[in-house]
């Protein structure tokens, strides 16, 4: 009996015997070992990034206390504020405190909500970011659910009908959307689908109390905007990765066995093309999480991007640090997944000699 995963081809089908091979006599299968290595490497990268984030904020000129409390604050209040936040301690101590908290899930307290009057309405960073993060991930997943299958479909079909009218239309259309600034795409969509034809709302101001369906309806236009922005890249890489393989001797062999063109693309080329495709998909998914602030702004969407921009403006450093760390982690995790897909779809690595 074989366990099969659609589309990934037979490289993904296991005999039960092979699965047992994965853990032979206490020895780790090379794949598991490689994945563990990558994981450790990812953690290390995250640590380096946290140091970079922290030190670049250290390099900003000016005094946080004055910036946050305002010009009116007395020197005593500022000093007290600095002491309270631990700003009087040396940088390495503050880094250790911060990272120590982060490891335990405590990202500190926001600077905002404090004032020279001494009234403290500040909130924990986690409480500020968590709902925004949920919104960002919601928009990103909705977009990914449309964009990734669409890009794969367009890429595979464009490779199949390469140099045909269809291929050209797909290429021209996706290139146009990627070459157009995203805010412009957003405004065009608002014009077409919210203003001229009032099918969707132009504001995507969702909140936690909304039902899933309503959220979906409200995020339709931002999702569509982002889809148009990211499809071209993924589609073109899928097409290129497949066409690149079509000159291989094993593709000619498949043709000479009488395999039809569509089966050649799906079963002979695609299974060997996952690594580059996965890399580009990971890159674009990361963009959906970390790079969508302009689209958020156009649709007044309450995502992390907006929060980060606000936090930078108000010098709310704990929020800035937490958001950037989260962005870095997103990049690292998505690229890690792409790496792992590249490894396990390569039978040379999955099934060593």
């Amino acid at each position, binding site marked *: 009996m074989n366990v099969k995963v659609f589309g990934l*081809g037979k490289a993904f089908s296991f005999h039960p015997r092979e699965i047992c091979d994965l853990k032979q006599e206490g020895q780790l299968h090379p794949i598991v070992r490689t994945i563990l290595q990558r994981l450790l490497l990812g953690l290390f990268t995250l640590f380096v990034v946290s140091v970079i984030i922290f030190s670049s904020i250290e390099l900003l000129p000016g005094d946080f206390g004055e910036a946050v409390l305002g010009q009116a604050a007395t020197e005593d209040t500022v000093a007290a504020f600095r002491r309270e936040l631990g700003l009087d301690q040396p940088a390495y101590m503050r880094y250790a405190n911060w990272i120590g908290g982060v490891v335990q899930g405590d990202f500190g307290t926001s600077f905002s909500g404090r004032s020279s009057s001494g009234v403290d309405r500040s909130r924990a960073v986690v409480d500020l970011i968590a709902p925004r993060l949920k919104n960002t991930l919601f928009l990103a997943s909705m977009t990914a659910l449309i964009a990734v299958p669409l890009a794969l479909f367009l890429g595979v079909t464009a490779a199949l009908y390469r140099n045909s009218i269809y291929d050209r239309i797909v290429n021209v259309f996706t290139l146009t959307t990627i070459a157009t600034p995203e805010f412009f795409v957003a405004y065009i969509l608002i014009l077409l689908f919210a203003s001229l034809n009032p099918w969707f709302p132009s504001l995507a101001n969702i909140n936690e109390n909304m039902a899933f369906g309503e959220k979906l309806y409200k995020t339709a236009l931002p999702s569509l905007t982002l889809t148009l922005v990211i499809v071209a890249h993924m589609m073109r890489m899928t097409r290129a990765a497949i066409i690149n393989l079509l000159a291989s001797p094993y593709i000619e062999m498949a043709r000479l066995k009488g395999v039809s063109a569509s089966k050649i693309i799906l*079963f002979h080329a695609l299974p060997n093309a996952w690594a580059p495709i996965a890399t580009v998909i990971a890159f674009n998914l990361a963009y959906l999480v970390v790079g969508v602030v302009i689209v958020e702004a156009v649709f007044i969407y309450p995502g992390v991007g907006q929060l980060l921009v606000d936090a930078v403006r108000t010098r709310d450093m704990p929020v800035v640090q937490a958001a950037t760390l989260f962005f870095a982690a997103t990049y690292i995790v998505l690229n890690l997944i792409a790496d792992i897909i590249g490894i396990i*779809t390569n039978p040379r690595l999955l099934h060593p000699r």
Partner: protein
Amino acid sequence: MSERDRGTKGDILLDMKNVVIDGFSDERWHEIIKGIDLTLRRGEVLGLIGESGAGKSTLGLAAMGFVRPGCRLTSGEIHFDGMELRSMPERHKQKLWGTRIAYVAQSAAAAFNPAHKLIDQTIEIALRNGQTSEKEAQADAIDLYRAMQLPDPENIGFRFPHQVSGGQLQRAMTAMAMASRPDLIIFDEPTTALDVTTQVNVLAAMRDAVERFNTAAIYITHDLAVVAQMADRIKVLRYGVEMEEAETRKMLTAPENEYTKSLWSVRSIYKEPQTSDDNIIEINGVDAAYGKGENVLHDVNIKIPRGKTVAIVGESGSGKSTMARVVTGLLPQNRGEVLFNGEKLPPRLKDRSKEQLRKIQMIYQMADTAMNPRQTIKDIIGRPLEFYFGHKGADQEAKVLELLEMIELDESFMDRLPEELSGGQKQRVCIARALAANPELIICDEVTSALDQIVQEGILQLLLKLQTDIGVSYIFITHDIATVQAISDEIVVMLQGKVVEQGLKSEIMEPPYPEYTQLLLSSVPEMDPDWLTELLKAREGV
């Protein structure tokens, strides 16, 4: 599998008339097949031979009604069992391909899809036709693997291509071609990428399969001795034109065409073996490994006499090239020493003096990749002149001219780029570049194996002449025994990183042999159509 009506043996199966095929290169169409007729009867094997560029593969593929991208069939007719393939739409041809006409590619390692198990690729077409269940198809594939004498036929199909050796892959590919019991198989240089010892088994398995299933075949190769074992008739091609066609025995004993006669001319060079006690290189007890891996050389001892040629022979993976890397300093040995003119050579390249570097030069198999494509021939040869001797300007040009003369090229080559040269001319330029350093030892790593027979002969003659003129010593790494016969004084036989024996050519090539030398030498195909049959009989007898 249901037995198709196969017609009677002797009926005409394939009839190609006046086939013309164009190829596109240098911005225009060239004729690469210039009007060839080909007839094949059921159960018959036709050998198609010629040098690279003769159009053998193109013609073989055209027999399936297939032309590679960048080529076009401009005129002619291809009748397969009464059907005209040239005008047949692709989707109809797809039904013939893999079922009635099958193809066996040159490099099985590249022609199997790395993402799928062998058996899934073997039964792909049987499943497409929907006549059999997966289980039946697998059982049949396993039978075929057994018929091809693959080890562990029940399980080998469940491996991925990279988990199986080259010779086994080539047999598995023949099994794949046989899976639908086709009427016609096109073998396109199926053993060219294999070692001679492996080739014997693959040839035997293929011949057996063709006979057992009474399949007609077109066998494409550049090796006359190989085709003599397989084919009933032989057709010789050159530059897309038929030179000669005859029954195999007649072709071998009495070729009529001048070109056909020249095809085995390499085998006519012979050098009287000599030796000398004055050794230019002594390799003593060398072990070497790549990275932290296991040793690939084990206690290697080799002596290279001054002014002589030592051929190192062995299969791929026997450590021939690794040994050359140790001598040149590209791979420092883990143990042992290399003496050059009695002095110890530092293991690492960067510890060696300029003089030591100058005196040992290398020539590679692929002249293409061993030259900078953006440099003119003058620059390529001039570089070592400047580096080792400081020759510049007019002085350098005069020296380059002198070297070009030695390799029998004229001064018009000075300003050309490598891509404007033929394969043989490129290899000559590489020889001149090595000579420019005025070396005492040249290591030739498979320098003729990418070249055609006639060109090979020219290069070998040149190397011999240079040795007589300037007394340079050669280490000649090759797997081609015919080349070894032609130019060596001494022979070193290597197997799995160890030296099996070293001695004068006349001693090594005469019995008694160590077991492995015997295997190696007996595996070299001979121009006798009965050679394979006799050899298999003899081996079974042992």
